[in-house]
Every structure is written in C-alpha cells, then in structure tokens.
C-alpha cells in the first residue's frame, strides 16, 4: 500500500495471472465440495478461500493496494467491525421466540371498568 497516494499499477500480464489464480481457487473450492470433507471443515475452508479471493480482488482489481493507506484504514476496519457485530448480535434473534408473552396474558382484553 502506498502512503503517498495512487502510484503506477501493474501491467495486464499481472492481472491475467491473478485472474488465473482466482480461477484455480474456484476449482479448489469445487473439488473440496465433492471430497467428502466434514461439513464444518468444508464451510470453514470455503469461507477462508472466499476471503483470499476477496482480498486479491480488493487489493489488486480495485487498486486499494495502490491508494493511500488512510483510505484502507478508514474503510476496511469499519466494515470488519460491522460484520463482527452482525456475527455477535444475529444469534440473539433466536432468543425472540422465548421472549414472547404468555398467550393467556397477551390475548385477554383489558376490562372496561
């Protein structure tokens, strides 16, 4: 990452190699899927490979590596924080079912006096 701002970016040959590398990762993902790996291991492996692909796309295809460091540090940690918060708070949705009021109490209309 450049600290001084946008600098010269790699040539087309580099991008073709990167594109081929991403295709290889896709092939590995498909092979892993049919390799009878345990579901948890498969899920973790696929997420790890997707993160590697995303990092390559972000840094090179989207040229984030060649922008000022402050752009990276202003955007990516904020996104990671939001995603980690999703991961921490989403399971709370399962608690909603046990938080419902008892049926009798909620369905009884208030007395008119």
């Amino acid at each position, binding site marked *: 990452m450049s600290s001084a701002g946008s600098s010269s970016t790699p040539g087309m040959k580099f991008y073709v190699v990167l594109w081929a590398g991403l295709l290889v990762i896709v092939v590995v993902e498909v092979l892993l899927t*049919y390799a009878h790996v345990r579901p948890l291991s498969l899920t973790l492996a696929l997420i790890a490979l997707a993160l590697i692909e995303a990092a390559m796309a972000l840094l090179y295809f989207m040229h984030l590596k060649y922008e000022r460091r402050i752009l990276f540090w202003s955007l990516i940690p904020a996104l990671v924080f939001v995603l980690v918060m999703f991961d921490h708070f989403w399971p709370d949705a399962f608690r909603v079912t046990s938080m419902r009021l008892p049926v009798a109490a909620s369905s009884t209309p208030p007395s008119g006096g």
Partner: protein
Amino acid sequence: MSHAELSMEQMHGSVAEERPYGVPTRKLVMWLFIIADAATFGAILFAYGYVRVGSADWTKPFAFYPTILNAIVMTFVLLTSSLTMLGAVRAASAGRPTAIRWLGATILLGITFAGLHLREWAAMIREGWSPSHNPVGGSPLFGAAFFGITGLHLLHVVCGVIAIGVITLLYRRGRVDASYIETTGLYWHFVDLVWMFVFPLVYLLNAR
C-alpha cells in the same frame, strides 16, 4: 476563462487543502457506497447462515449437473468480465480507443451472466421453487434465502451493465474522461467480489 472564474479559482487555490484520501470525490463516494453495500450483503449472508444452522430440515437440492456446473460457468464469466474491465480502465487511462471494445466485452459478459442466472431461475421455478415453497420437502426458507441473495446480486449485475453501457456511450462521445470508467470499474469489481462469497456459500454448500 472569464475574469470572475479566474478570480474564483485563484481564491479557492489559495485556501484549498490537499485531499486527505488522495482520490477524486467521485471515487471516494463510490468506495463509501461499496462499503455500505458490503454491509448489506454481509447482513443477508449472515442471516442465511443462521437460518440454515437453525433449520434442522435444510435442503441440499443442487446436483452437479446442471446447477453447480452452471454456477461454475457463471463464476468464470464474471471473473473474466473483471479482467476485461481492467483492460478498459488501462486503455482509457492511456487514451487508447480500444477502451470501447473492452467495455463492450464487459457488457456482453455481464449480459451472459444475467442470462445464465435467469435461465437457472426459470428452471427452478418450473420445478416448483419459490421464495415460500420448497417442492422437495424440507425448510421453505431455502427458497427465500436462495432467491433473496441471488436476486440482490443479480440486481447489482443488471444495474452494473446499465451503468457501464451509459458510461461507454458518454465516453465515446467525449462527455466523460477515463476517471469515470475507473469509478464504474470499482463497482463492477465489487459485484464480482460479492459473487466470490455467494458461489461457495449458496451453491457449493447446498450441493448434493
């Protein structure tokens, strides 16, 4: 340049500060949009993950042929479209007229991706799949998750194809410069980046 414009420029030039991010405002706004959109896709993918883990009768309906093979071809098409977009950005930055051809190739690949996706959807709908119905039994939430996630991504692809088409026309007429192609390219690479998560999590993890 008129005298008034000249004096305005001189005035702004004396007080203007250096851009803190070193990128044009247009590009910075696109980055902010991408981060917000990434959070949207993150939310929908996390929700899919929890719904899937929370459903004891989750369906894994995708056979290698035709669904997974079709998704592999779609991945190849979208990754290649990112490469042609990079070609367009480089050609436009160098002032070469081949930028138009690279952009045309990107549009064609985007349309191909959308066509393959819609063909897959049509086949699934004919089999009885819908956002609220699962024809093979099991959790009906599969249809909601599948059509919701892939539909949101497909919407982004269609918007991207339209945006690249408009930018191509404007660039050809000399109404916009290479920086507009670079900014549109950022969006297109992001669409590709999202698919890198949709393909393994929505297709491969639901393969039979």
